[in-house]
């Protein structure tokens, strides 16, 4: 009954399970980069180039006080960008994230200053506001079917008004709660910085080693020990350097007031980075998010609730905007109608895209937002030190964003040509 179909050699390449080694991994990485999958490479290279240029032009760029400044300056934008990654992954956009952070910060300020509620209640209220905003935006996009560009553009305008209403037509509400102010203005004690460092590096090493061992046991291809050592070593050296520099005395007058330690926003960003990365890479929800961004129809046929996934992406984005708003309010110790306004949103979108998140959907990581956020912070900070005004800063940041989006589009074209991604 069964006929034998003649076997043609065709492209039948017998599974060449290359011996995994650090050399092979590196070669595979080079091949991916050449094929158009650059990942975070442009952001990292850009960061290095920018830092070298600014360091040569302005020696004050490489002081420990400026290094600490970079983190607090970039924190709010980075946090908003982390949320934006989720929406960008679907190929959608949220133009209202900046003013959503402003609205949430205003809610925080009003509940804190006018109602006098304890800080944790106010933080919760601000984040809940973010959740509500995200639900409304997501529902309008997913269920009603209005393009996200229009929905969030409308929200962008409306939220400016909402902030004005909340802060009474333009008054400046100052925040005096010590916990909230501490987030962006206080530092960890140096010993805690080192303890955190040790825990992070150890946990990273443990996760990598355990995974490799589990895979080897099952007979699957695992990362070689040398590659794991390289990764852990790089993290240990870079993070160690950062903690060391941040623990140096950076007060202008140490006798009067001592200023040392890792800014509190750093662990805040780290915790959120790890949390969202795990959710995106290791849970079914994250997998479905990528699937919807890659091929909505395929996701639908696989039984994935596409609408629910879309709405949750907007909820995550607006909630992270709320967190960004809280950090911005903390840094300024006040909220005014311009909180989350002007360039915040564009910097956040820029951060996500510069880091390697595709505007076409389906490709991106939360880490991209952090790397891109660092680039944006360095430009802002370095240009400031060079004495350039707002005009040049906007021009340069705009060009960098255009460059990043151009790299994304070209990489995509190249990927389509080489069949890689």
């Amino acid at each position, binding site marked *: 009954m069964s006929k034998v179909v003649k076997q*043609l050699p*065709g492209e*039948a390449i017998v599974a060449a399970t290359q011996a995994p080694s650090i050399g092979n991994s590196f070669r595979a990485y080079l091949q991916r980069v050449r094929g158009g999958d650059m990942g975070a490479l442009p952001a990292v290279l850009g960061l290095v180039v920018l830092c070298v240029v600014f360091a040569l032009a302005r020696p004050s760029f490489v002081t420990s006080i400026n290094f600490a400044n970079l983190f607090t300056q970039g924190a709010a934008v980075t946090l908003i960008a982390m949320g934006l990654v989720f929406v960008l992954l679907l190929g959608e956009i949220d133009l209202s994230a900046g003013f959503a952070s402003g609205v949430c910060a205003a809610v925080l300020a009003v509940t804190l200053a006018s109602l006098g509620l304890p800080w944790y209640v106010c933080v919760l209220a601000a984040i809940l506001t973010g959740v509500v905003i995200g639900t409304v935006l997501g529902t309008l996009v997913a269920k009603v079917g209005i393009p996200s560009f229009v929905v969030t553009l409308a929200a962008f305008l409306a939220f400016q008004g909402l902030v004005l209403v909340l802060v009474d037509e333009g008054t400046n509400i100052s925040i005096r709660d010590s916990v909230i102010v501490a987030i962006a203005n206080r530092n960890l004690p140096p010993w805690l910085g080192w303890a955190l460092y040790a825990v992070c590096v150890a946990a990273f090493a443990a996760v990598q080693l355990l995974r490799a061992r589990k895979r080897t046991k099952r007979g699957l291809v695992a990362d070689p020990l040398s590659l794991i050592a390289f990764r852990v070593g790089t993290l240990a050296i870079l993070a160690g350097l950062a903690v060391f520099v941040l623990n140096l005395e950076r007060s202008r007058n140490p006798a009067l007031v001592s200023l040392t330690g890792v800014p509190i926003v750093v662990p805040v960003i780290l915790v959120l980075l790890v949390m969202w990365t795990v959710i995106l890479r290791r849970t079914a929800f994250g997998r479905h998010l990528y699937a919807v961004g890659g091929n909505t129809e395929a*996701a639908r046929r696989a039984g994935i609730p596409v609408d629910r996934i879309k709405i949750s992406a907007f909820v995550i984005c607006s909630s992270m905007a709320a967190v960004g708003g809280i950090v911005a309010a903390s840094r300024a110790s006040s909220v005014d109608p311009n909180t989350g306004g002007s360039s915040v949103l564009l910097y956040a979108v820029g951060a996500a895209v510069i880091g390697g998140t595709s505007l076409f959907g389906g490709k991106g990581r939360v880490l991209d937002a952090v790397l891109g956020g660092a680039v944006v912070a360095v430009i802002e900070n370095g240009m400031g030190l060079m004495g350039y005004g707002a005009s040049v800063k906007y021009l340069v940041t705009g060009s960098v964003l255009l460059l990043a989006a151009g790299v994304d589009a070209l990489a995509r074209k190249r*990927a389509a040509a080489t*069949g*890689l991604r």
Partner: protein
Amino acid sequence: MTPLLEVRGIDKSFGPVKVLHNVEFSAYAGEVTALVGDNGAGKSTLVKCIGGIYPIDAGTISFDGRPVQIHTPRDAGELGIEIVYQDLALCDNLDIVQNMFLGRERRSGLLLDEDSMEELAEKTLSSLSVRTVKSIRQQVSSLSGGQRQTVAIAKAVLWNSKVVILDEPTAALGVAQTAQVLELVRRLADTGLAVVLISHNMNDVFAVSDRIAALYLGRMAAQVKTADVTHAQVVELITAGRSGDLGLKNGVTP
């Protein structure tokens, strides 16, 4: 030998247009049944009725000898009927394993159980003797048309399916890739599955099928054993609905 999947007397209309008239169709375990017919003959409609995408107006579907109701794609999936559509429905930005388990991921606790998924995907692919992919952690975007088809078929087989329906799997493929996919189709049947192959290509049909079902203007012209007919007869059945003693009499099922 009782057919694994048997439909009897199916009618299907879209508004005033009657697309399927009293269609009979059977698929047997361990065999490849080719479903042929000209454009608009109703092949895709029939398949979508079986897959639970379109409701049927009249007729019965029986599975493994007992009558069943298929109202949604999920019902079909639970019976073990998987359809591989022409557009494959793969996510380019995910790798092979991720695509094969899409929507039905295995978990341990809250997190995905990547290792067991990778193992099972590997097992499925090697049981189909698929050796054409370098790594199952490759992104689908880097695969050729034939490899994509293979992944889509393997995805359908992964779920202990009993009937696999392939909608023109070789339509967009080159010579070597077509041979590979046909070989895979044959192997599926040899492992005991009932395979339904929709195709326009007579060479493909004669290369792998055990039976041929020819639709003509929404009517089943004939269901015959491949060994009993010639190329020319099948072409006549497709284009005219009859060929000598075979086929429709005066345009209706005898």
